[in-house]
């Protein structure tokens, strides 16, 4: 159960922040960032994802069981992607 409800204002602010970050990411794609381009773009994507999860999917106010389901998914993704990339990148 959602313990406390998020307001419409929070949702509108989140939506606005997402569009600002979208514009920043799109604008930066025209700047030559070299090797930093991908980490920067993925960093902005991760920030947007965090906003969606916390305020649109309401994880910020969700019960512990739901937070656990989410944390388990994130932990398994980190293991799967992290170890595979570490292996391939260090060959």
């Amino acid at each position, binding site marked *: *159960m959602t313990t406390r*409800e*998020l*307001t*419409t204002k929070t*949702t*509108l602010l*989140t*939506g606005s922040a*997402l*569009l600002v970050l*979208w514009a920043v*990411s*799109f604008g*930066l*794609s025209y700047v030559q*960032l070299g090797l930093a*381009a*991908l980490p*920067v*773009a*993925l960093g*902005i*994507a991760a920030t*947007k*994802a965090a906003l*969606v*999860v916390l*305020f*649109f*999917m309401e994880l910020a106010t*969700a*019960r512990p*069981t*739901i937070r656990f*389901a*989410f944390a*388990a*998914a*994130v932990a*398994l*993704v980190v293991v*799967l*992607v992290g170890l*595979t*990339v570490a292996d*391939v*990148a260090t060959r």
Partner: protein
Amino acid sequence: MSTVDDARALAPAEPFSDGPGQAHAARLGMWVFLASEVLLFAALFTLFAASRTQHPAAFHEGVAHAKKVLGSINTAVLLVSSTLVALAVQVLRRGRTRVAGLLVAGTVVLGGVFLAIKITEYVEHFGEGIQPGGRGAFFQEHATRGLAEFWTLYFGMTGLHAVHVVVGMTLLSIALLGILTGRITAPSAHRLEVFAIYWHLVDLVWLFLWPLFYLA
């Protein structure tokens, strides 16, 4: 709405003794399902990362060739659609079913816009001789090793995502029907909420596909 309909909309289904308990179970069920969806996409992102590490030049060339403007418009379309459906859940909880219905309808329409743009991209790429599996005239003219992997992953991952968009649109259409017929109201807002959470996941996956295939 009749008293009988009111009672059906409010009463918890078996085996739940109260509405909030049922709502939490529905929500938790969707989150666990989404966790499995995340792992499905994580496997593909892992494959992408491994291929990109092996063929950095080809992946750079692939990104430079992708339809950046169309892909970027699609990102904005999904972000706005997610905002609309998040608002729909909130106004439905406050009993404003008509506004909620309009917002859900808007979300479904934006899902359709996303698919139309995606199909446009696919048609343009097919026209250029780019097909999954490294087939097509494009790959005879562009011999960089790893380009076939890039475009196969592009079609595979964006295609699987597009399937999820279709599923999300279907679920939200069912919710819209429920709102219009009075089966989904403020006390049963979780029925819309679980589909909205699914839609947000579709948005989340695209948030990572966008930089990988179009930006960097």
